[in-house]
């Protein structure tokens, strides 16, 4: 069945290696869960209280199961899907390597995030998932919409994640630690705690694509289908609710936050659900469905308590399994038919019966039909809603009805009705994961205990105390069952009454386009871009403004530095003796060279004059006792002179005519002079201060010179660079490495392959 593919063995081998890796990770997760609560605790930056604190508790187990289990199935699916995807786009098969690398990074980050107990570590993994998702969403980088979608997802999720870091710092200021268990042990309601929780919650909600920061998710459907199936069903969006779960005991300190979660959650359920009803593209339906489904989880966190926590955990499991199966189905159908729109599909149950049944089970699980795992998620959801009053109950029933309606429309649209398209064979690797996920849904519908145990373990962490999660079938008229039956009836009605439902959902879509947050985002981004453009143009208009943009801020910063530094003993004009003669000669030479560079109208002479100036200053450093600085100055001056001469040798022989010369009288001339004076004055002040050699006294420099022998060194400059200030040097050379990557890609004009 597999078509002959022009594929190099490495790309395929890497795919199977990734599958093996995911299988290993799943095995690790299973043994980790069975082994019970255990943790890794390593110091990271003890001086600022950071630790690498990973704990494999119930919550970590649940999300690690999702990340590795669904990861394994999606990886297996991708081994069949990616070669076709790349061939379809006329790209070399080797491009799949990038896909695999980022998928594996993503899986690792997700497992790390699940187990993180340190707020800063959590933030790092949180952003690592965003970085990986940027590359995965933008995997089809030749497509403009994929690139736009990637950057949109990146900006929305990492932009709000900054709030998470601020929240972590606020909590650290309040409780003196970044370690979450220690914060939870001592946390009390306070304004700072509330603000920190709000900031972290906003970051988490944006990640889980909740209103009003949901708009990145539908556009992220530009990603290849396996990416959507993994990131946008069970992993990336789950990272948000995972963070909410981790800090839930903190959120529960302020009831206003919980109420806010209920409001945001229901808004997401209904807006997402109504918009899902209006979509034509398969993956768009599923994307809006994800917004809606994570709304349920957020509502449950808002309801809180053991019932809310247990239901939320169960919801995440059931939804992850069902939704990834449906995403994979969408990819399967598109591969088989070449179509991705509901309006052009239909009747596929006859030609792909197995997938139709599997997708039907996944859809039924999402719609909470009996004999599927999904039934229990709604049972627990309703049970939690019952404790929260009639409004929440009514909304809960309406939400479940909406889910049934849109997912029913999805399945019937694809598999029901008459066939409209021709079918191509599909590799078996694409069908098997869907069947396995559907089988899991049915298994959970019959033997729910293992899933309930996993959910109970996680809910214990969320709730901060043990939780009993024991869903079961009850054939009686208890409120949960009545709510479920009314939801099915209402949903079926919505499904049938297309002429009522369609105008409403279209109206919501139109209203969203006109006044929704996406428009606001676009306007904000547009104005920031215009501002940046204006600054950029002012900066690089000509050589003079480019130089001024470097020299003037440097001068101002140096002046500010001097304002804050004691300068006693500096700026003294001492006596000049015979011993100072070489110094004076070098300084006179420097002045002469400086004047030549400024006044000479030639081309090569100013360059050579500048290099004379540099060498003369190097000589001055050597004489006043800074041989290390002199050595670096000499080698750098040599490089600069060579580069200057090489560049000037390539200039055209004819004289350069300044087109703006006539207009650069008046104000512009004074501006140039002012920039020159600011930069020159600051350089003058810095060099004079350096040359006046104030007594060391009790300065930092004195202390460091005193410590040098302890560092097994005799030369204080080297010891400062490699030891005392080693971290600074490390950062600087890292910048150097990054800069050379940028320079090389610019010189190659961005062509790397």
């Amino acid at each position, binding site marked *: 069945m597999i078509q002959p593919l022009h594929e190099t063995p490495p790309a395929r081998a890497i795919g199977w290696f990734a599958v093996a890796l995911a299988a290993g990770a799943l095995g690790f997760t299973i043994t980790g869960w069975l082994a019970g609560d255990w943790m890794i605790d390593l110091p990271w930056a003890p001086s600022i209280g950071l630790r690498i604190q990973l704990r494999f508790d119930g919550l970590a187990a649940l999300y690690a199961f999702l990340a590795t289990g669904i990861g394994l199935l999606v990886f297996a699916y991708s081994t069949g899907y990616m070669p076709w995807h790349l061939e379809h786009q006329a790209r070399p098969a080797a491009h799949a390597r990038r896909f695999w690398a980022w998928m594996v990074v993503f899986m690792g980050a997700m497992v790390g995030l699940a187990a993180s107990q340190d707020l800063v570590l959590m933030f790092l993994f949180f952003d690592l998932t965003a970085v990986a998702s940027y590359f995965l969403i933008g995997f089809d980088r030749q497509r403009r919409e994929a690139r736009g979608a990637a950057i949109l997802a990146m900006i929305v999720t990492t932009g709000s994640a900054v709030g998470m870091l601020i929240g972590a710092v606020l909590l650290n200021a309040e409780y003196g630690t970044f370690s979450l268990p220690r914060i939870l042990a001592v946390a009390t309601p306070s304004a700072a705690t509330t603000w920190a929780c709000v900031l972290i919650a906003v970051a988490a909600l944006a990640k889980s694509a909740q209103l009003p920061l949901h708009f990145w998710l539908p556009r992220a459907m530009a990603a290849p289908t396996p990416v959507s199936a993994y990131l946008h069903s069970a992993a990336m969006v789950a990272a948000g609710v995972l963070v909410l779960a981790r800090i839930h005991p903190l959120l529960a300190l302020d009831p206003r936050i919980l109420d806010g979660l209920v409001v945001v959650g229901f808004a997401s359920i209904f807006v997402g659900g109504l918009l899902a009803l209006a979509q034509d593209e398969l993956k768009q339906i599923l994307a809006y469905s994800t917004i809606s489904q994570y709304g349920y989880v957020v509502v449950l966190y808002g309801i809180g308590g053991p019932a809310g926590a247990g239901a939320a955990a169960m919801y995440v499991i059931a939804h992850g399994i069902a939704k990834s199966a449906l995403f994979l189905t969408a990819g399967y159908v598109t591969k088989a038919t070449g179509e991705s729109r509901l309006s052009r599909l239909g009747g596929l149950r006859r030609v792909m019966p197995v997938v139709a049944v599997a997708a039907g089970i996944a859809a039924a699980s999402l719609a909470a039909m009996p004999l599927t795992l999904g039934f229990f998620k709604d049972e627990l959801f309703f049970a939690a809603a019952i404790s929260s009053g009639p409004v929440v109950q009514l909304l809960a029933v309406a939400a479940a009805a909406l889910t049934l309606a849109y997912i029913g429309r999805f399945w019937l649209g694809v598999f029901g009705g008459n066939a409209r398209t021709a079918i191509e064979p599909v590799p078996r690797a694409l069908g098997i994961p869907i069947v396995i996920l559907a089988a899991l849904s049915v298994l959970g519908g019959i033997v729910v205990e293992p899933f309930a145990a996993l959910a109970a373990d996680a809910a214990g962490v969320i709730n901060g105390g043990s939780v009993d999660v024991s869903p079961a079938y009850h054939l009686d008229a208890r409120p949960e069952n009545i709510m479920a039956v009314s939801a099915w009836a209402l949903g079926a009605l919505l499904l049938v009454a297309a002429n009522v439902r369609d105008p409403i959902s279209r109206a919501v879509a139109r209203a969203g386009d006109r006044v929704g947050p996406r428009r606001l985002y676009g306007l904000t981004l547009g104005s920031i871009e215009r501002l940046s453009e204006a600054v950029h143009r002012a900066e690089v208009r000509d050589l003079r403004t480019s130089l001024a943009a470097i020299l003037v801020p440097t001068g101002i910063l140096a002046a500010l530095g001097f304002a804050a530094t004691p300068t006693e003993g500096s700026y003294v004009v001492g006596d000049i003796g015979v011993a100072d003669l070489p110094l004076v000669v070098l300084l006179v030479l420097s002045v002469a060279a400086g004047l030549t560079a400024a006044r000479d109208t030639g081309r090569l002479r100013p360059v050579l004059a500048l290099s004379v100036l540099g060498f003369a200053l190097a000589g001055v450093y050597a004489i006043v006792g800074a041989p290390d600085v002199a050595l670096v100055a000499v080698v750098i001056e040599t490089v600069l002179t060579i580069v200057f001469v090489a560049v000037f040798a390539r200039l055209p022989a004819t004289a350069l005519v300044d087109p703006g010369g006539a207009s650069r009288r008046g104000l512009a001339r004074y501006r140039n002079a002012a920039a020159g004076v600011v930069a020159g004055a600051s350089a003058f002040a810095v060099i004079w201060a350096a040359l006046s050699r104030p007594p060391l006294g009790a300065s930092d420099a004195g202390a460091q010179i005193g410590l040098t022998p302890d560092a097994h060194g005799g030369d204080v*400059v080297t010891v400062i660079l490699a030891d005392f200030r080693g971290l600074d040097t490390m950062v600087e050379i890292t910048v150097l490495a990054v800069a050379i990557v940028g320079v090389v890609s610019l010189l190659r004009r961005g062509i790397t392959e």
Partner: protein
Amino acid sequence: MTPIVKVVAPRLLPVAVIVAFALIVKGYTDVGEGFGAGVIVGLAVGLRYVVLGPERADDSMPFVRRADVLATGGLLIALACGFVGVPLGEPPFTHHPLPGEPVLKLGTLELTTAVGFDIGLFLLVVGVVVLLIRELSRLVAEAGS
């Protein structure tokens, strides 16, 4: 180009490497450290490019083709030396042996992890300078042809 340059340039690289080596070895007791040493080697490589042209210079120094590996390797060595103690609970850039502990000596050179850091820095700088020279020389050669 004078005959002297043509004769001297290709023979300057070993000398530069020795000078650089001396700078690093002496660095902890006397003037010099990895950065200056790296730039000196870079200059000698650059001189070969000026004299021989990009292609012949590439052929005469096989290692320059992997300047990116040199730079990355240097960065990794520096990172490793700086953060070796972090998993053991030490702050970054805690160099070993610690103050007061005995240290292995090679002549005047005392072998500490700080010297390893300096060597990493040296390799990074050599890699960066060589990368830059190669790219620029290729650009010049393209513009010339």
